[in-house]
């Protein structure tokens, strides 16, 4: 499942095995979604999986804009949030009117919520791309988020509106009270939306979106109106963001103005970019990582925001193609059979790099806990933040780790160059 530009000559040979592998990847993904909760069944992991599922749908929808069409939006959460509100209102309406609509259909209404807004606002917004679009989306995002606090009857003010997912008509005997059932509902919609969004990339519209991203001017001369293309992409992105919002509403049973706000918009931009916009599965990885960090880091350290920042800076600087880009870099090497020449240099690099990371962590935690005096627990070793021993350890790790690590990074680069040359010679790399 990739839209990657691949090798030159070996493509035809792969084609027959390709479709098998293609369906294999999808089936594997679905199977994983089904068995995951059986392996990790604690309440905590179920909640995490559910949130990750929602984040994936949201990030994929964002990539329709950023990765596929080249539109940088600072207000994508508007559709997510409106989807959430639409779903909440719909659930409440279903309950109060006694409509026979079971819960699994609700995300569709979330999607419609996101879509309707996109349809209304999108035409003027997508007139232009680039900074103008980005800034309009910032403005619209703030406008909608602030208005949601004023239009209390629809958005419920600061506290938002709540709903009860179990009050809807049952389906297949499921009440959707237990988190497990909600997880499967989310997983179901995740698969559905992912397939739909993947399919979208394979349609004429999807391809033309790519063309608009690369060169909107030229698109006009092959018969397309880039404005229409951007608008349609915007609507699709809005719809799937709304689906994600609807899923969130089901999961939390609440929708409030924070759904719509800049923080959500920023997070989805983060997830998508960090995962990698050039590949379909990039945003999936990004959503998993970011959600996981968000949930996990706060447990480990009080200064999680600092790590969050550092990790992002690191990824942006050292892997601008995102995680997916980093992974896909290796594909030609695997095909050319030269990956094994790089692995040893990776292994060598791990030790000093980890040492460096530990040193940084130790330094940060030492500073952070200096006044509190709580011990730092790093891989089972306790450090006292007020003791000079800790400081020296941190300094040695950082400085020593850095210098040794730098040498090993060079080694990686060299090994890479060699492997890539071979891959190029064998026609697996352009």
């Amino acid at each position, binding site marked *: 499942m990739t839209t990657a530009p691949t090798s030159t000559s070996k493509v035809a040979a792969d084609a027959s095995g390709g479709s098998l592998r293609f369906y294999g990847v999808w089936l594997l993904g679905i199977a994983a979604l089904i068995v995951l909760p059986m392996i990790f069944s604690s309440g905590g992991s179920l909640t995490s999986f559910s949130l990750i599922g929602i984040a994936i749908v949201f990030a994929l929808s964002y990539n329709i804009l950023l990765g596929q069409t080249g539109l940088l939006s600072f207000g994508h959460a508007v559709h997510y949030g409106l989807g959430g509100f639409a779903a909440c209102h719909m659930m409440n309406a279903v309950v109060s009117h006694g409509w026979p609509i079971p819960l699994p259909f609700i995300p569709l209404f979330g999607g419609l919520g996101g879509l309707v807004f996109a349809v209304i606002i999108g035409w003027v917004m997508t007139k232009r791309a680039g900074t103008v679009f980005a800034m309009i989306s910032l403005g619209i995002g703030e406008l909608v988020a602030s208005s949601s606090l004023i239009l209390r009857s629809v958005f419920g003010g600061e506290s938002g509106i709540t709903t009860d997912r179990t009050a809807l008509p049952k389906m297949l005997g499921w009440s959707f009270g237990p988190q497990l059932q909600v997880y499967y509902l989310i997983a179901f919609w995740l698969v559905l939306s992912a397939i739909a969004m993947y399919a979208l990339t394979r349609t004429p519209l999807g391809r033309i979106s790519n063309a608009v991203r690369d060169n909107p001017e030229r698109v006009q001369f092959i018969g397309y109106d880039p404005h229409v293309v951007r608008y349609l992409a915007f609507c699709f992105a809005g719809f799937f963001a709304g689906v994600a919002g609807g899923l969130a509403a089901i999961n939390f049973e609440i929708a409030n103005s924070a759904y719509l706000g800049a923080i959500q918009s920023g997070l989805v931009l983060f997830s998508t970019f960090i995962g990698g916009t050039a590949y379909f599965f990039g945003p999936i990885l990004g959503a998993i990582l970011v959600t996981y960090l968000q949930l996990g880091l706060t447990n480990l350290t009080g200064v999680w925001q600092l790590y969050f920042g550092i990790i992002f800076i690191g990824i942006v600087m050292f892997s601008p193609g995102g995680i997916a880009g980093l992974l896909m870099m290796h594909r030609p090497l695997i095909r050319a059979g030269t990956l094994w020449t790089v692995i040893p240099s990776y292994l060598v690099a791990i030790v000093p790099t980890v040492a460096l990371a530990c040193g940084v962590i130790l330094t940060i935690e030492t500073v952070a806990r200096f006044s509190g005096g709580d011990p730092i627990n790093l891989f089972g070793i306790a450090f006292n933040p007020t003791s000079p021993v800790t400081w020296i350890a941190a300094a040695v790790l950082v400085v020593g780790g850095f210098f040794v690590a730098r040498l090993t990074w060079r080694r990686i680069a060299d090994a890479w*160059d060699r492997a*890539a*040359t071979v891959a190029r010679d064998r026609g697996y790399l352009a």
Partner: protein
Amino acid sequence: MLEVRDLHAYYGKSHILQGVDLDVAAGEVVSLLGRNGVGRSTTVKAIMGEVAPQGTIRFKGKDIAGLPSYKIARLGLGYVPEHRDIFPSLTVRQNLLLGIKDTRRPGKWRLQDMLDMFPNLAARADTAAGVLSGGEKQMLTTCRTLMGDPDLIMIDEPTEGLAPLIVQQVGDLIARIAEAGVAILLVEQKLSIAMRISKRVYIMGHGRVVFEGTPDDLKANAAVRQEWLEV
């Protein structure tokens, strides 16, 4: 003035320049000829530091290999690249002014001289350079580099995409520059101009210089022309 010895350069792992030697004396006009893709542009880029050079490059006796390009330029080496890197959002005038390295020391060439020389540019002085016609862009880049008052100017394919008449004009311009005492390293495909104005020519093939001599030598040597210039 410019002395290049055993110059090597790579794009990634491909070895493009495999030991280029060439010299340009002060005030001299020298052409660097050769087929497409033999590495002529790469040679000048390596001299300017845009491509990492290996080997010796001396300019006015100073080793400039590996210096950042702004330092090389400040030594008095001008470079007009082949893709007409004009600054599209700036006006023609602003483009020209950016050629001046130090506003406190006026050079030989004034803004007005340039505009006089090319009425086309004068008429467009205050329009954004991005809308210039292909030919106008070429004139602009050359003039811009001249504004920096170089002692040696390296021009990469100045006549590409120019109308025949303008090609002649550019030829005249180059001759004028040479008259003003500026040395020129001309990278060209069109033999006619090169032959007309240069004192010496180099021909490149396979990443190294394969022929060196005067235009007359070259005229006399049909075999070289046949093998290295496909004419």
